[in-house]
């Protein structure tokens, strides 16, 4: 098992390397001159040249890529050019390892940007995950047990309705009515645990988390329902019933254990995707998470931020995959190796 995880991590690292190269090449293949954007609106050619030099954009792409990789491993300093650093030591910015670059647009290192946005996205994804998994499994199992009844149909229909609504509709509805008009909860703002404690933190996450959860829950309700129904036709369920087990125990111990295994994969990947993918929800509730950061970086051609985010989110997906595979081995004895 340990060797397996090491092997997977190694493959993941190679994948990230390729991803970073592709992102670099793609960006420089575009007709946009990043130095032009970094410099500002009214720039003379000399200023653009100076900016390019400061950020290292004057070097060949491959060299910029290796500089970037070196920065990730040992850290680096900005401006990139040693002469400029020597000329104005008071303007030098330290970017310790793993340095993901320096964003001129936001005049800070990418690491600092991410450090600010990451807890927000993580909290949001966790809150949403908790709600959609518990809700999805609960309603999915109820629908499966009551298959064919009005309860089953109601749950399936309702989940389809939520599935059909776009995130901005649910988000704005919750914000405008639940929070502002009916004043059921205070308008959500993100408060870190360190500042306001767990209570305020949870309060802020309630509505944005619910927005995401409702969207994801629909799929999970339907999948849980299908998996439970499918497992109910298995021979081992008949065996369990033939032993004289109570139907609740047959459902919980025998059917659900098998039915929920495939959900583990989905939960892991959806969670990783949500870390940088909750763009609309973050925008509606004005949460400065990774998704919003990514959209803004795209709008301003903020190359270093984009590369940093691509690598970070790629890392999440790779790690989530490894965790899911390890979990699988824990759940299903048949896939245990060694």
């Amino acid at each position: 098992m340990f060797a397996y995880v090491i092997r997977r991590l190694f493959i993941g690292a190679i994948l990230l390397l390729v991803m970073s190269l592709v992102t670099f090449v793609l960006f420089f293949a575009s007709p946009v001159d990043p130095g032009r954007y970094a410099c500002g609106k009214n720039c003379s050619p000399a200023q653009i040249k100076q900016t390019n030099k400061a950020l290292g954009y004057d070097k060949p792409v491959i060299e910029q890529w290796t500089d970037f990789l070196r920065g990730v491993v040992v850290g680096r300093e900005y401006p990139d050019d040693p002469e400029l650093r020597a000329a104005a030591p008071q303007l030098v910015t330290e970017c310790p390892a793993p340095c993901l670059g320096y964003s001129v647009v936001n005049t800070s290192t990418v690491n600092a940007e991410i450090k600010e946005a990451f807890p927000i996205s993580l909290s949001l994804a966790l809150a949403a995950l908790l709600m959609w998994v518990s809700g999805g499994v609960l309603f999915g199992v109820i629908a499966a047990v009551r298959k064919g009844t009005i309860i089953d149909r109601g749950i399936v229909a309702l989940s389809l309705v939520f599935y059909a609504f776009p995130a901005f509709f649910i988000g704005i509805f919750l914000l405008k009515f639940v929070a502002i008009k009916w004043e059921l909860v205070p308008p959500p703002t993100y408060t870190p645990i360190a500042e306001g404690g767990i209570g305020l933190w949870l309060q802020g996450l309630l509505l944005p988390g619910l927005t995401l959860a409702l969207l994801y829950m629909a799929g999970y309700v339907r999948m849980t329902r299908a998996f439970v129904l499918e497992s109910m036709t298995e021979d081992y369920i008949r065996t369990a019933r033939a032993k004289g087990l109570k139907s609740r125990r047959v459902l919980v111990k025998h059917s659900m254990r098998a039915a929920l295994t495939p959900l583990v994969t989905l939960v892991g990947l959806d969670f990783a995707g949500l870390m940088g993918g909750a763009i609309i929800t973050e925008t509606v509730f004005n949460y400065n998470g990774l998704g919003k950061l990514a959209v803004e970086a795209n709008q301003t051609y903020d190359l270093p931020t984009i590369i940093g985010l691509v690598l970070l989110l790629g890392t999440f997906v790779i790690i989530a995959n490894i965790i899911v595979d390890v979990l699988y081995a824990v759940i299903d004895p048949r896939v245990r190796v060694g």
Partner: protein
Amino acid sequence: MSSFLSVRDLKVHFPTVDGIVKATDGLSFDLERGETLGIVGESGSGKSVSSSAILGLHRKTSAVVSGEILLEGTDLLKISDEDMRRRRGKEVAMIFQDPLSAMHPYYTVGNQIGEAYRVHHDVSKKAARARAVEMLDRVGIPQPDRRVDDYPHQFSGGMRQRAMIAMGLINNPSLLIADEPTTALDVTVQAQILDLLQDLQREFESAVIIITHDLGVVAEMADDVLVMYAGRCVEYGTTKEILTHPEMPYTWGLLSSVPDVLGDTSAQLVPIPGNPPSLLSPPPGCMFHPRCAHRDKVPGDLCRTVLPDLVPGTRTEGHLKRCHLTDPDAVYEREVLPEIAPDLVEER
């Protein structure tokens, strides 16, 4: 004096959008403790459906079960669901075919066997595990105290079937239903499993219903045989009688399909032509007539129009058959036996 198990006019019907599937239609038989009944028939003839009905395994939402299943005088179809659940696995137990899919892949063998014990006995997990080890030992699994913590996929096919038997017998059931217990196994293991079942039956004095399509298993195990075709009993009698003087052409077909390795190898293996009928729209008359080679021996086209009743056979009491032929024994000796076992004809 009524029998230990007495099934009367058992019907299991599945309503579907296309009509009612009569998987079992009017099945009756008796069984005493210590005796074994073999239920024989092709796939889809209603063997497993009937035995599942005895355990009350059919869901009320999908199946309509009627008739009487009297176990020591109690009608299992009339008692409450909770009462049936308490008897299931304790008084009536079932061993399923294909134990790889019949055991849960995520739990250890010991966990699953012990669970069967704990449902009906208020004991600790530890005690249930000890009991599981004891049963595994009893069914001949080597090093049971170690293997008890293995998962089903770590067992061989024969061991899984033994574990399945251990699970079925852990509560000393008075009625044991074995659904094709040896179908998935190779022949040497088959013989061991059958021996084991016989030993255990003697030890526990259980009544056993063995469901199979293998007449060899029936010859080895059963006191009585019930031949099923398309949800109905077509022939019923003692094993000796059925195997030596069958009176229903379907039973002849089953006998002709069994190879006789030690006997005359020049004997032909005659498969039954055609396929079992659809249970949704069964053929009129005798269900077997489309596949029967002897239907034209009956005058008046009766086979194609009238379903024969289950009536006493021509030779012995208690032998029942569902066939219009008036002299089945003679037809069998004259036409069937010479083909499938020429050496036997000479002996007679």
